[in-house]
Structure formats: structure tokens, C-alpha cells
């Protein structure tokens, strides 16, 4: 399932609700992304940035976001047919440091599919889902730059037989 929302969510409660305790599922892998207080520009002193950042605002492309996340879920289920369930929650709007931004959960009978699908989903989401982070500081907003390492992380999931 895919959820795009402005409202905060409770990661522990979401993971508990996602966890199928019927005995069918043996493995649940999750990834939680939180707002850091020291995003900053590459190479910038974290302490300097930390002193500055007040909130983070996530802009997104309504419609395309949901479409891309659904495609992502479909791709994960096609790659790992053993997946029992998938959940992706992604927030937009203004958030304070420490607040959850994104939660990815993947469940399967054995651990390999859950762990791999969870890593795949967050890696691809980082380069495919149309979200943009802006740091809000006392001096105004600053758009966060995309990181080459995110492209590299997503590229390791590229298979010759698909795209």
C-alpha cells in the first residue's frame, strides 16, 4: 500500500499494524527516514548547519508522486514474488528535526525478500519519487541538492533484463 500525506505518522504504531501475526509471515524489514538537523550543503560544517535549520519543507508533485510510488510497489512485487505485503508512507509539507518523513515496510515468509525489497524501495524512491526538500533557516529557504550517492544506490538494482 502507498500513502502520501501531510499529517505526521507514528512509526511504531504503523509497523505494529503492518505486522501480520497470523503465522504466515516470518520476516518484516522496515526503513524509517527522519528529518535531520544537519542536512546542509555537501562539505558544509554540520555544526554550522545545525545552528541554522529550523524546519524542513517537502514539496511534491501531487498525482505523479502517487503514480511513481505505485509503480515502485508493483516493481518490488514483480521482482520478489515471495513478498507478502508492502507499505510506503511518505509525508509532504513542513516538518521539524526528528520527525518521520518516510516509512518503508516489506514482509515475507523468509528474510531475503523482505530485506532486499525494503532496500530496493527506499533506494528507488530516493531517485524516482518527485519530492524536493527545502531547509528553512533564519536566513530563508535553501533547496537541498540531489546526491550522486543516491543515483549510485539506485543503480545497483538495475537489471539488464529490465530497465
Amino acid at each position, binding site marked *: 500500500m502507498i500513502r502520501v500525506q501531510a499529517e505526521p505518522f507514528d512509526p511504531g504504531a504503523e509497523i505494529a499494524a503492518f505486522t501480520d501475526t497470523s503465522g504466515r509471515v516470518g520476516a518484516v524489514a522496515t526503513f524509517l*527516514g527522519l528529518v535531520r538537523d544537519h542536512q546542509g550543503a555537501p562539505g558544509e560544517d554540520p555544526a554550522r548547519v545545525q545552528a541554522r535549520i529550523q524546519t524542513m519543507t*517537502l*514539496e*511534491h*508533485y501531487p*498525482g*505523479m508522486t502517487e*503514480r*511513481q510510488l505505485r509503480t515502485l510497489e508493483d516493481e518490488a512485487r514483480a521482482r520478489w514474488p515471495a513478498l507478502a505485503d508492502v507499505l510506503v508512507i*511518505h509525508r509532504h509539507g513542513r516538518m521539524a528535526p526528528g520527525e518521520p*518523513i*518516510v516509512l518503508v515496510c516489506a514482509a515475507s515468509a523468509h528474510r531475503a525478500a523482505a530485506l532486499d525489497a525494503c532496500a530496493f524501495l*527506499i533506494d528507488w*524512491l*530516493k*531517485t*524516482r*519519487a*518527485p*519530492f*524536493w*526538500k*527545502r531547509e528553512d533557516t533564519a536566513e530563508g529557504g535553501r*533547496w*537541498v*541538492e*540531489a*546526491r550522486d550517492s*543516491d543515483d549510485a544506490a539506485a543503480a545497483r538494482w538495475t537489471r539488464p533484463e529490465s530497465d
Partner: protein
Amino acid sequence: MRVLYFAWVRDRVGTGEETVEPPQDVATVADLMAWLAGRGPGHAAAFADPGRVRCALDQDYATADAPLGTAREVAFFPPVTGG
């Protein structure tokens, strides 16, 4: 044609959305960026370095050489930074 702008592309253009009617010879994403850049100083700043701008045609990613085809919604934005 509906054109959407996001993040710093929108900040520079000065609006999040506009409707445009480019001439017939604007056939690809790259053509459209070059044509939009001529609409004013904000647009020019947004598309000053087209390599830094990403595009979606009807909500699917498209490269600079992609034909606009029958796309009704075109969006321009920086590389994504979610997650």
C-alpha cells in the same frame, strides 16, 4: 499545454503553473526548455543550465530528447531529493 514548475525551478520562473502554446517547431523537451527560456528573465534563469532540470510528460519521466508528442501536462523540476 499545461506546464508545471517545482522547487527552485518554480521559484525562478515565479509561478507554479502556466498554460502555453508553443509553435509547431517545438518538438522535443529540449526545444520546449529553450522556447520557455525566452519568455522572460525568470524563465531564462530557470533554464539557464538545462542539464540541471528534469522533465515529466504526463507524469512520467522524460529525457531532453523525448518528443513532446501529445503530452497535455509537462513538468520541470530539479533532480528529486525525497525519502
